[in-house]
Every structure is written in structure tokens, then in C-alpha cells.
């Protein structure tokens, strides 16, 4: 049976359609995915992301352990900073993508994908190079609520004495929210709209949810399901593990080598395999984004052609609720990822055309 987050009862009470995702029974939408999506872009929305995993790395060797385990640098992170990084396997593929939150010199919270919680914890434990770094699975200790959208800061600020203005993008601070101590307030998110993610002790998650819903009422806050979370991240062109990233896809293909610091002292686990694949030139495909010309929707798995030749596949696709056009992310032969390239998409035998574009489909606006 799928697990439930501490907020499951809230979702059922709100009339959510429940689906299994990453081993959890989660709300996919409450009433309308499109309305929820637009609510985040235009006002503010609340997401239960308690299914995400949290791994704690602590101790005198924590920093050195993380430098080996993750692809990005950790040493130069300030206390209260957050950083996106990859876990890489010995085949040049990706175990997961994650965010490292530096709490103090020797204390880090790592947020990982729900579907990879057990895999990542086992990976961290098996590959921990330091006996003086303690790795703990804190996934069940934390609830996590994302508040995203242009009004998110106003709503959150009304419930906390913390000065949110001092928390920059990809930074975080400990704080009390809605009278609940022991929260971590992070200016991070997965929507392409401004907002925060709040880590809250699991047994207080419902209280925080209720307080945020109430405080957000004047701003038209809605609970947002995983369906809109997916379409929002697609518009922002953020990768999702299992789609744009996998154990077989290399960071080179995913155009994520900017978060792979090959040259850092001691390099990192999996770096040699990524470089070897790059050297061998076997990864001919790269990640791209395309706008679809017609009204049909291309989705994960759709074949991509150029002049009748198979050149790739779609990893994520939907109809953008903001652009009201089909959008997708895809792997294509290098060179065909140049903006303006026209590609064909095989939708059950009939071809739709699309055009490669660079950058986010919907650009981030200021709060």
C-alpha cells in the first residue's frame, strides 16, 4: 500500500483526486489542474511536498563526505545557502538530482526525490567515505509545504517573525512559522514562480497547512496538486527525475555539467565515468525544448523525427496553461537542439511539427 503524507486527510477533505506517486498517495488535482496552475502564476498556491525525502549529513566529516557524494561544490556554501547538485553513478548516469541545504559547518540537509528516497539513502550510506560523517534518513521526520506564486511572500510573512527579505534565492533560515518552532524556511521551489519551501516537523504539518490556507485566503490561495506541479515545472523547463534524468542519462546529455565540478579537489563519485562517456562521444543526444505547432499534445515517449529519420524522444510534454500551446522537453541528436530547428513528432502514426526554443517556456517574473 502506498504511504501517506501527514497532510493526506486534508487532501481528501478538500475533494482531491488521489493518485500514487513515488510510493505515496498524493493529490493530483483538487478540482481543475488548469485553474490551480494559473493560481500559482497569478496569485499563490500551496503544495504538499512531504513525499520528498530528507537525508541528514552531520559530523566533522560531513563536508568531505558530501563533496565526494554530490557533483556540485559544497565547501564554498555559506550557512543558510542551498545548492542544486546531482548524485552520479559509475556508469556516467544520474542516481538523483537534489538540493543541499547547509545548516552549519558540519550539518547539512539534503532534499531528494520521493521516488528515490530509499535508493538515495542506500547510495549515501554505501558510498560514504567518512566514518566521522553520520547519514540519517529523516524523511519521516519532516513535512514539507511549498508556497509558490507572486503573493507567497506576503502570505508567509504574515505568519512568521522571520525577516523573509534577508533570505535570498536559494537560501534558507531556521524559523518559527504559525507558532511552530523548528521550521526551515527556504526560498526555493519547483514552479518557475517566486516562493518558498517550508520544512516543518511532520506532526505539525497539518497545523502549518491550515494556517497558511487561512492566511492566504484574502489572496485567493488554493491547494495545488501534483498535476499542476508537473505542468508548472515543465513551463519553467526544470528537469524531473525519471523523465529528463535517469540512471542511464548522463549530465552531459542533460546539459547539467554546470553543476558537475570535475575540477574540485578529489573530484566526485561518478565524475570519471561522465568524462569517459564524453570522451568516447557515445552520448550523441542532448536535452532540448520545443513548442508544438498544432493542438495535439506530445507526451513522454513520443518519437521525434527530422525529415523522416528517427532523431530522439520526448521526455515530458503537456499543453501549457499559460501559453495555451503544446510544450515539451526532448532528447535529440546534438545540433538539432539549435533554436528554430523544426522537428516532427509521431503521434500514433500522424506527424505534428514543433520548433526548438531555448530557455524556459514561461519566464520567471519578479514577485
Amino acid at each position: 500500500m502506498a504511504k501517506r503524507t501527514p497532510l493526506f486527510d486534508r487532501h481528501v477533505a478538500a475533494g482531491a483526486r488521489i493518485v500514487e506517486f513515488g510510493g505515496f498517495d498524493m493529490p493530483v488535482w483538487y478540482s481543475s489542474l488548469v485553474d490551480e496552475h494559473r493560481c500559482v502564476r497569478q496569485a499563490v498556491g500551496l503544495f504538499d511536498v512531504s513525499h520528498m525525502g530528507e537525508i541528514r549529513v552531520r559530523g566533522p566529516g560531513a563536508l568531505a563526505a558530501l563533496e565526494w557524494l554530490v557533483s556540485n561544490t559544497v565547501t564554498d556554501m555559506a550557512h543558510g545557502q542551498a545548492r542544486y547538485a546531482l548524485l552520479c553513478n559509475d556508469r556516467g548516469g544520474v542516481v538523483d538530482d537534489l538540493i543541499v541545504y547547509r545548516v552549519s559547518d558540519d550539518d547539512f540537509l539534503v532534499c531528494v526525490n520521493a521516488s528515490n528516497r530509499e535508493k538515495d539513502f542506500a547510495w549515501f550510506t554505501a558510498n560514504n567515505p567518512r566514518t566521522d560523517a553520520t547519514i540519517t534518513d529523516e524523511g519521516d521526520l519532516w513535512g514539507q509545504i511549498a508556497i509558490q506564486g507572486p503573493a507567497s511572500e506576503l502570505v508567509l510573512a504574515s505568519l512568521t517573525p522571520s525577516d523573509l527579505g534577508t533570505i535570498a534565492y536559494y537560501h534558507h533560515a531556521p524559523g518559527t512559522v504559525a507558532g511552530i518552532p523548528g521550521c526551515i524556511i527556504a526560498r526555493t521551489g519547483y514552479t518557475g514562480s517566486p516562493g518558498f519551501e517550508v520544512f516543518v516537523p511532520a506532526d505539525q504539518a497539518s497545523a502549518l497547512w491550515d494556517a497558511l490556507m487561512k492566511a492566504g485566503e484574502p489572496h485567493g490561495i488554493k491547494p495545488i496538486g501534483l498535476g499542476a506541479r508537473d505542468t508548472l515545472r515543465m513551463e519553467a523547463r526544470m528537469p524531473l527525475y525519471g523523465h529528463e534524468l535517469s540512471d542511464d542519462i548522463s549530465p552531459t546529455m542533460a546539459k547539467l555539467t554546470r553543476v558537475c565540478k570535475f575540477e574540485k579537489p578529489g573530484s566526485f563519485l561518478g565524475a570519471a565515468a561522465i568524462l569517459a562517456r564524453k570522451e568516447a562521444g557515445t552520448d550523441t543526444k542532448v536535452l532540448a525544448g520545443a513548442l508544438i505547432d498544432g493542438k495535439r499534445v506530445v507526451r513522454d515517449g513520443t518519437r521525434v523525427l527530422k525529415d523522416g529519420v528517427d532523431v530522439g524522444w520526448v521526455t515530458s510534454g503537456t499543453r501549457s496553461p499559460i501559453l495555451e500551446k503544446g510544450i515539451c522537453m526532448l532528447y535529440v541528436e546534438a545540433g538539432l537542439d539549435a533554436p528554430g530547428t523544426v522537428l516532427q513528432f509521431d503521434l500514433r502514426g500522424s506527424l505534428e511539427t514543433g520548433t526548438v526554443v531555448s530557455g524556459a517556456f514561461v519566464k520567471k517574473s519578479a514577485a
Partner: protein
Amino acid sequence: MSVPTTLRYTAHDEWVRQEGDLLVIGITHFAQDALGDIVHVELPEVGDTFAAGAAVAEVESTKATAEIYTPVSGEIVEINEALDGSEELVNTDPYAGGWMFKIRPSDSAGLDSLMDPAAYATKIGA
């Protein structure tokens, strides 16, 4: 979730209404509710012919694509043009304004397999 008593139903959650010698076909409330917000309906062309069980149309929601099958062989005689631009009718009015196509059956094979409202209500747990 109420199931209209004047219609018959397929195992794929289409509804079928007899209209003279034509059949009008759409998707049920249960089906639209499972798909979520409909953003496009790909309809056949008038004059197209299909064999019983063939995929005739496609319904796209933000989350998934569903194929719509014809329970009988026949020729498409009318399509719901309003769905081009007002796709949400499938969500808001699935049994009336959200109809998809009318087909003139070339024979009656396939009609026997349709469910009556009680059987369909049982199928969807209504």
C-alpha cells in the same frame, strides 16, 4: 455520480445515444472526471469510415491522452465543431454539449455489447 438512464455505455467509458438511425457518442462524466481538464479533442472527418472497435477520436487533457472508440462499424456523418475552442464542454456538459461525433452504423454488430445504465453504474462503482 449519476448515470443517465436514457443512454447506453461501452467498457471504455463512452456513452451512446440512439438518434434515428444514427448513434451519437461522447465520454461519460466518470471518464472526464478521471482525465481532468480537457484541452483538445481530435475529431475524425465527416465521411470517414471505421470498423467496430476502432479509435475514432482522441481526448487530450493536461495530464493524459485517451482514445475514443466506436462500438459499431460505420460512417461519420457529423462532428461536434464546438469542441474546437470550447473543449471544456466535455468536462462541464459531457452528456449533451460535450458530444463528439455521430456515426451511421453499417450493421448492428457491436450494439449487443453495450451496457445498460445499471451495468455501467456497477462498473464505475456509482
